[in-house]
């Protein structure tokens, strides 16, 4: 499954959910689909998209908050899954874009631990997160994402993706400014855009 194709399916079922996206090339691809949306926070530092979304999910009545993490980023902060399992926030969905590689360094040149068999769905399940799945095809994504983005969670969805680096360059040319994004994200949530 190619990441851009998976992200298109995700966007189809996203609804109004705010998104915080981890670092890496996936941001470029989501940016080409969604554009400069104030309720999407791109390029969060490694390991922190999920806990930021956890805090948001625990503190608001938003029906859904989505963390889009790479496998490398989630591996850098696995402890957050124990906290998600402990507090069971129903509005939280964590989607792991698992290409088994640190994608910023060429096409699968630097592999993550998931390439050696670490199963992030089973890790999540062992942490007490009841709603988990691993998606390997777009058909599975089409059938599962509507549930994972609309029914009570927490959810951890592991999307197994091809490792590739041929992303659209638009994002790299016009990256949203990190400081601007933070302020706009906050203001959009306060205004109730989402």
């Amino acid at each position: 499954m190619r990441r851009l194709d998976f992200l298109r399916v995700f966007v189809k079922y996203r609804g109004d959910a705010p998104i915080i996206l981890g670092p890496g090339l996936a941001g470029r691809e989501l940016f080409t689909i969604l554009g400069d949306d104030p309720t999407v926070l791109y390029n969060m530092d490694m390991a922190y998209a999920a806990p930021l979304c956890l805090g948001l999910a625990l503190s608001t009545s938003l029906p859904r908050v989505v963390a889009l993490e790479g496998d490398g980023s989630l591996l850098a902060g696995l402890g957050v899954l124990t906290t998600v399992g402990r507090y069971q926030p129903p509005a939280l969905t964590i989607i792991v874009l698992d290409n088994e590689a640190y994608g910023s360094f060429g096409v699968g040149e630097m592999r993550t631990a998931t390439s050696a068999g670490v199963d992030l769905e089973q890790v999540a399940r062992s942490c007490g997160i009841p709603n988990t799945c691993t998606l390997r095809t777009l058909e599975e994504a089409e059938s599962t994402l509507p549930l994972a983005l609309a029914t009570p969670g927490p959810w951890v969805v592991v999307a197994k993706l091809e490792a590739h680096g041929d992303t659209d360059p638009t994002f790299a040319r016009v990256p949203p400014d990190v400081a601007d994004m933070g302020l706009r994200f906050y203001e959009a949530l306060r205004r109730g855009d989402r």
Partner: protein
Amino acid sequence: MTAEAHPKPIVNYREEAARLMYDSLRANGIDFAVLLPDTVLHVVNRLFLADSAVRTIVCSREDEGLAIAMGAYWGGKKPVVFMEGSGLGYSGLILARGQVQRSPTLIVASHNTVLGERYNYHAATRLVTQPILDALRIPYHVLHSAEEIPLIVREILVTISGQRTTAAILVPRYIMIQD
């Protein structure tokens, strides 16, 4: 609730100082707390965990806890994060991100560079607590006495709100523990 509801702790806490910290934070609008247990702040943590009006989250590591608190700030809450000062050693990147994107939180952390550091196993803790804050130019105040807690809590929260900056109160051991 009181400490009597729990097994006797192995240190002699100054319950009145912990109560003053809790009351001051609540009186000034703190409504979301994240903590990783710490000896010095144990009674304060216990008071927050017993308060059903505040969502208090026990995190697995301090940098994760800061990110949770910053998410809660975006959710409209007024958060505090309790930690041992060693946790700041894990937290440089998320603290920096919070400053850049202006998602602040209050930190209440034990330990500091100068006052009351009696145990050498806190040597590394003492070396990271204030230097991390200094490096990121995050404002902080080291408490000198329990009596100043209400003033410091009130005014540091004014600064956090007015400047949208994270800020910290550092609590020497003698403030909360009678040795």
